[in-house]
Each structure stands twice: as C-alpha cells, then as structure tokens.
C-alpha cells in the first residue's frame, strides 16, 4: 500500500507554500488506501471473524440453535468437554495419528525424493517414478476412503495377498478390529499424504549447490556424512515448515476418518474432529460442539503461531 501512496499523481505534491489545498482532494487521498483494502477487509470480517466470533459466543451459552432462548453459562461447557473421557481418548488418538503420520510423511517423502534426485537414474525413468509416486496425492479423500475400505475388507485384496504369502492364517479385520483400526487409518493417511512432502523436498534437493557435495567429497566425507552435514542442514527450513503445516492439516483430518471408520470400532479411532462433528450433528449439542471447536482452534493457533514465528525468523 505504501508503494501506491508514493506513486500518487504529481499534481498533489509540494504545492507553493502560500497555496492551501482544498479539503476534498486531501480527504480523498487519505481514504484511498482504505478503499483499496475495503473489499478484503469486508470479506475477512464476513467470512472469517464473524463466524469465529459466533462460535466462541455459542461456547459460553447453553444449547444454542435448538433452544430459541439460550442463556449465558460461563465456562460450564468447557468443564463438561474437558472432563468427558471420550474427549481425552480423542486427544490421545489425534496425537498418535498426527505424530506418526507426520514422521512417516517426512521419512518416506525424503527417501523417495532422494531416490528421484539420484544421478543413477535416467530422466525418463525419473519422470515415470515421479508420476507413480505422486499418484496417491491426486486422489480425493472420498476415493482414498472407498479404495482402502475395499482393499482392507476382511475378504479384500490385502488379506488375500498376505494369506497367499503365508504371512497370516486367518483374515484380519483391519478397520473393524479395535486392535488394528487406529494403525490402519494412520497408514491410509500416510499413504495419501507423503507425495506432498516428496515433491517439496525434491525441489529443495535440486536447489542444493553441487559444490557443497564436491567440497565434502574432497574433505573425505562418506555418503552418510554428506547426508547429515550437507543435505539435512540445507533442507532444514523446508522440513520444519512442511512438518508444521502437516501437523496443522493432520490434526484437522475429518473426512478420511469419517468415511473409513466413523470414529469406531468402539472409540479407538475417535479424533477431535469426529468428536466435534458427532456433538453437533448427531446429538444436536451445538454449544458443546462449539466448545470443542474452540479448543481445537486454540490448539491450532499455537501451531500456527509457531509456524509464523519460524517463517519470520527465516525471513
């Protein structure tokens, strides 16, 4: 905006000392920047601030929407949500789901990116693998859910293959057994999300100057030492940014869980997102759902704050 203010027409600049400018052009000049900002500000207020403020307001009232005259109840809803054992299960599951997903995304993404960046492969082979590896990221969540529900069905392809290879002797109920469901949905999420890391890290790898590796070779570094002392430090800013973004996205994952397990069996795959959804749309407890949503918002804001601080320190 400052650039615009500076490039204002020359007629407004440095009038003769005795000449007093008329009022209207001065006002016009003052408000011009705000007029430019107005559409964005309006959209932000209507689409972001207002709904967020409403949800925060709901979380301090007794049951809103279904109750025509809700009253202020202070922190009652927060106490109710935080003391609900299912909420704790949801927090625990979300932490596991997010932690394992992000770590695996990073390891797999880096591994595949390094494979694709290898000088041993010809360009055509690289292009082929790049397409194959990036495929999972091109599917929408609905397709991923349907695909894996079929693959992991007790009578599905995965069990058939494992059976044929002699690794299992009876069918495993991957998504339906309380012992395996959380691991299974985490695995699906890892499969669906690693290509994004891979593509970003590949771009990072291609940007590392060759002379760094040559210098390391001259110093007698082996492959592992080069990876630890050249590749990783060069990729660090990308890895940290990606990891923070992935944590924010994965904690908010809803569609995949809902379409594969719905939070079950029992509540072994209940996440904060499914917990909030159930409060709102199957119990119609919109106030409690708003409370749970506000808690998720606060947690996400902590992560967003870390992300912004990291970005700022980079700049």
């Amino acid at each position, binding site marked *: 905006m400052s650039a615009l203010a500076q*490039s204002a027409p020359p007629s407004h600049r440095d009038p003769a000392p005795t000449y007093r400018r008329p009022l209207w052009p001065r006002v016009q000049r003052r408000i011009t920047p705000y007029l430019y900002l107005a559409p964005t500000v309006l959209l932000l207020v209507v689409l972001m601030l207002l709904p967020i403020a409403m949800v925060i307001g709901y979380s301090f009232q007794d049951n809103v929407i279904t109750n025509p005259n809700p009253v202020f109840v202070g922190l009652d809803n927060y106490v109710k949500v935080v003391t609900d054992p299912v909420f704790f299960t949801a927090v625990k599951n979300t932490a596991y789901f997010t932690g394992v997903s992000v770590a695996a995304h990073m390891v797999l993404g880096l591994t595949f990116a390094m494979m694709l960046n290898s000088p041993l492969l010809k360009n055509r082979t690289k292009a082929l693998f790049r397409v194959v590896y990036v495929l999972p990221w091109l599917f929408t969540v609905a397709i991923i859910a349907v695909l894996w529900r079929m693959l992991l069905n007790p009578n599905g392809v995965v069990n058939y293959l494992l059976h044929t290879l002699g690794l299992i002797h009876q069918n495993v109920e991957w998504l339906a057994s309380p012992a395996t469901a959380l691991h299974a949905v985490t695995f699906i999420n890892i499969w669906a999300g690693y290509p994004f890391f891979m593509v970003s890290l590949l771009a990072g790898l291609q940007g590392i100057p060759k002379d760094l590796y040559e210098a390391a070779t001259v110093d007698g570094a082996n492959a592992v030492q080069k990876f630890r002392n050249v590749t990783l430090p060069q990729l660090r800013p990308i890895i940290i940014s990606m990891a923070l973004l992935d944590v924010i996205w994965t904690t908010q994952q809803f569609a995949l869980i809902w379409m594969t397990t719905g939070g079950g*069996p029992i*509540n072994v795959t209940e996440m904060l997102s499914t917990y909030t959804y159930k409060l709102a749309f199957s119990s119609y407890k919109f106030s409690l759902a708003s409370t749970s949503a506000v808690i998720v918002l606060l947690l996400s804001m902590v992560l967003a704050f870390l992300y912004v601080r990291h970005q700022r320190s980079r700049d």
Partner: protein
Amino acid sequence: MSNGARTVRGLLVASGAVALALTTACSGSSNPASTSASGEKVTLEFAQWWEPELPAGALQGVIDDFQKANPNITVKLLSGPYASTKEQVVAGAASGTMSDVVGLDGAWVSDFTKQNAITDLSALMKDNGYDDSQLVSQVAIDGKTRMIPVVNFVYPLFTNDDLLSQAGVSAPPSTRSQFMDDAKKVTALGNNTAGWVLPLSLDAPNGVQNDVMSWVWASGGSMLKDGKPDLTNKAVTSGTQFVKDLWDAGVVAQGSFTMKEQDKVEEFTNGRVGMMIDSLAHINLIKKENPNLKFSISAIPAEDGYTGARGIPYASWGIGIAENSKHKAEAWKLVSYLMSKDVNSKLSTLANAFPGNKESTPDFSNSDPLFSKAFDIYKAGTPANEFVGLPVSEQLMRDYGEQLQLALNGDESVSDALKNAQAKWVAEF
C-alpha cells in the same frame, strides 16, 4: 497494463464479488410472495427426498393431479437426496424458514417438536373433521400427532436359497434356535461364507435399529417402558444375548464393527452370507447387481415358543407441516390428499413400499412377487420401530452400538453393556 490500471481492475472485480456475495446472502432470506386470503392463489413449498428415489416425474405427476383438483394451490417441490434434505430441514427449523410441508424421518420428530418447528396435526385433523382411524400409524409427542407416515418400508429376513440348501436347510428359520443352527451350518460351508451379517458402524448406526433391536420387537419385546428407556428388561437382555451368542459362535460375517448398511447388502448380494435383515427397498438393487442370486424373504425369527404378533421393523417417509407456515389449511389439504386411499395406493406402488392408509392396497401386478409376499408378512405382523419419535435417536443407537461392540469384543458382559447403555439413554432423555 500499468500498475494503477491493474489495481483499479482488481478492485472492481473484488467489489463485484463482494456485491454478489452480499446479494446472494440477502436474497436467501426473502420468501416468494404468495397470498393466503381465501380464493387467492397460494404457493406451498414441499421439501422432501422422495422425488429422486421415485421413478422420474412420478411425484410431480401426483402433485399435478393435486393442483388440478385445487386450482388455487400451487405446490413447489424442493427435492434433494436424504442427507441434504435433512440438513435443509434442520436449518429451516432453527431459523424458522421451514418449507410449508416437509418430508420427515421419525428420528427427527422429537427434536423438531421441542423446537416448536412442526405443527400439531391432531388439531388440524380435528378442525378439518378428518377421520384418523384410516391411518396405519401416527407419530405423536405428548399425545399430539406431529408426523404421519405416508408409506412404510419393512425389514424382513432375507435368506440365500442356494447357500441354505447347500447347508442342508430346506426352509428359512422361524425361531431363534433354528436361526442359530442354520447360521452355523452355512458358516460350516467354509470358503469365507458366514451365516449372518451385522453392520455396527458408528457413523451410520442404524444397524442397531434394523439388525439388533428387530430381534427384540419380533418377539413382542420393547426397549421402552412408559416412553422411557428400559434396556435392562428381559426381552432386550435376551435379544442382545442372542446376538452375542451368534457372535461367539463365529457365525457373523467379519468386519462388523465398521460395516454399514450398503456393505451388508453387498456381502449378501455377493453370496457370502446366508441370512440378513434388510429393507425391502433393496430387492431391485440385489436383483440388478446379481441376477443369478436366488433368495427368499420371511418374518424375522422369534423366541422359541412365542406365538403373539411379530413386530416387523420399518422405516417411513413421514410428512409434517411447519409451524411457521402461513398456509396450514392448504398444507393440510396436500397432506390429506397424499394420505387418501387411491393416491396412497399409487404412491406405495411407485415406491415399492406399503401404504400409510389402511384402506389402500398397492398394485404388485408389475413388481416382483417377493413384494406381495412381504405385504402378507406385513399384514400378519405389526410395524415396530421404537426409535421413531425418540429424542436424538441416532445418538441413542450409537450409544447402544458402542456398548454392544464392547460386549461382543469381550470387554464387558451383556448385562453391564445394557446397564451402561441404559444410563446413557436416560441422560439423553
């Protein structure tokens, strides 16, 4: 293009977008003008999910006939799939902008009544001198009718004839012990076949209603006492214990805990399970997907020695009138038209369902013979679905489903599961 010109153009585009967004937001709240004074034209909105599920143009045809008979009433159909209709109706109830006439599911009635979003139909029937003895059922809250089931879909037992005969079973079971024996025999065939299939997914928990509680209702049992939860009674305990016995005997198809209704139908259609409880509405789908599958339908088995009328689970296309409607008298005309003997027969024929008017008879001459057999089962039993009209009924099913999963998984006993579910239900009530 200079920087300034580009900015001005961007500004214009952005302000255009804001103006458009605001116009759309504002126009949502306006209602088309329609006059209600007698003799003048009245426009009724009718929101439902039925039109997409009926043959193309069928519901519009019924409405056209109604408009011909009532030239001063125009009916505007607002149709969408079930889930989006539900969202639309819930939002309308919250904001007081519900369509005049709404398609209802029994599970929503209690909440809408609490919100005072749907009107008291008993009063309308009285004012219009309507004889309600012709209705098969009504959903009433505190003695006032809020919903009338227009057509009903029943849930009998489906049996795979080929699998049963391979297992040496000649007729579908009619008692629980016969069912257990038959299920064991079918499972013993091997090759991943199972005797029974039980969908217990928690995101769509209607398996609790259709596949579990149906055992209780079929033997004349009830999960309620004086309108309050009564899950620990003898009938529910024995029904739930029977499901647990089937589970322990290993005759239930794998994947139950996250299985949904459509997965259940798929397992049956692919010939992997011998028996399932399912909606008649799926007959055409099963025949289309697997034309070679031979199957029969029969009443759900009852407890050994039970001789009373068998409750048969059902789901309805219900109808109600919005409290905020300015044209309740005209809306009632539409409701009573849809419930009249001939129109109701026609609707039930079109929907492959059973009529909500006692005097109506669907015409099965062009449909599958299984439908007329199911109609006999329906007439011999009583429609039973105690979840209709309960508060947050989907959540109640989920609460029970969660406890049932714990019991089946061996984490708690059946009686503890029922006690815990009872406590949760009491809290929801």
